[in-house]
C-alpha cells in the first residue's frame, strides 16, 4: 500500500475514532451525574465531525454543499427547539 498523505490521514482518523469509542465507553462507567449524557454526546459529535471532515472531505466540496449540510442541521435544530420548548415546560411528570 502506498503511503500517500491521504492514506496516513485516513489511518490517523480511524485510530482517533477508535480511541474516542474507548473513551466514551470508559466515561460511561464514571458517575458524572447529568454530565454523563453531555460527555457521551460531545464525544459523538467529535466522532461525527471527524468523519465529516476527514472521510467525507467536506472542506474541499465548496459552499453549495456546505449550505446543503447546514440546512439539514438547521431544520433539525428547529424541530428540537420547538418540540422541547413544549415538553420541557409542561410539568406533566
Amino acid at each position, binding site marked *: 500500500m502506498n503511503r500517500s498523505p491521504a492514506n496516513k490521514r485516513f489511518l490517523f482518523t480511524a485510530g482517533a475514532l477508535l480511541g474516542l469509542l474507548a473513551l*466514551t465507553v470508559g466515561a460511561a462507567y464514571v458517575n458524572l451525574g447529568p454530565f*454523563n449524557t453531555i460527555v457521551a454526546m460531545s464525544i459523538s459529535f467529535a466522532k461525527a465531525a471527524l*468523519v*465529516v471532515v476527514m*472521510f467525507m472531505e467536506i472542506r474541499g466540496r465548496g459552499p453549495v454543499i456546505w449550505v446543503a449540510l447546514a440546512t*439539514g442541521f438547521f431544520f433539525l435544530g428547529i424541530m428540537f427547539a420547538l418540540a422541547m420548548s413544549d415538553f420541557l415546560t409542561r410539568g406533566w411528570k
Partner: protein
Amino acid sequence: MSDQATAHAPQFDNAAQQRESATFGMWIFLATEILFFGAMFLGYTAYRLAYPAAFAAASRHTLLAFGATNTAVLLLSSATMAFAVRAAREKRRTALALRLFATAVLGTLFLGIKGFEYTREISEHLLPGASFHFDQPYANHAEMFFYLYFLMTGVHALHVTIGVVLIAISGVRAWRTDAFARNDTAVDLLGLYWHFVDIVWVFLFPLIYLVERHS
C-alpha cells in the same frame, strides 16, 4: 483537467457540472436523512426525559460488548470506504474492488452481530408486544425504550443492508469492468451515504448502550 473529455449526459454542459449536480443531490438526500432520523431521536429524547429511571434500567439490559464491537466494526468500515473512494479517484481498479469488498464484509459483520443481539433480546422477551416482559418496576416505560431501540436500530440496519448490497455490486463492477475508471462519481456518492450511516450509529450507540452504566 483532462477529465473534461469524459462523457456526460446531454442535460449537462460538461462532466464537471454533471459530477457537481450528482454530488449536490446526494448531500440534499443526506440532509433529508438527518431529519428522518432526527424525528426518531426527538422521540427518544422526549421519552427519556419523561422516564429516566426506566430508560437507565432498560439500557443495562442491552449487550454493551456487542454494541461496542459493532461500533468499532462500522468505524473501520468507514475507513475502508474512504480508502476505496481514494482508489477510485486514482483509477486503481483492483485496489478499489478489494476495498469495496472489505467494506461490504465489515457491513455484513455488523448486521450479523446486530442479528445475534436481536435474537438474544427476543428470547429474553424484550421485543415490545404481547410477549414483552420486564422483571422490574415501570415495565411499560421500559417497553417504550425497547420500542425505540428496535425501531431506530432496525431502520439503521435497513440502511446498512442497502449500503452493503450497493457496495458489493459496485465491488463486482469494479472487479469485472472499467466502469468506475471512466466515471468515479458513483463511488464517491456511495462513500458519502456509507459515512452518513456510520454517523447515525455513532449517535445511537451511547443513547442505547451507555445510559447510566455506572450505577
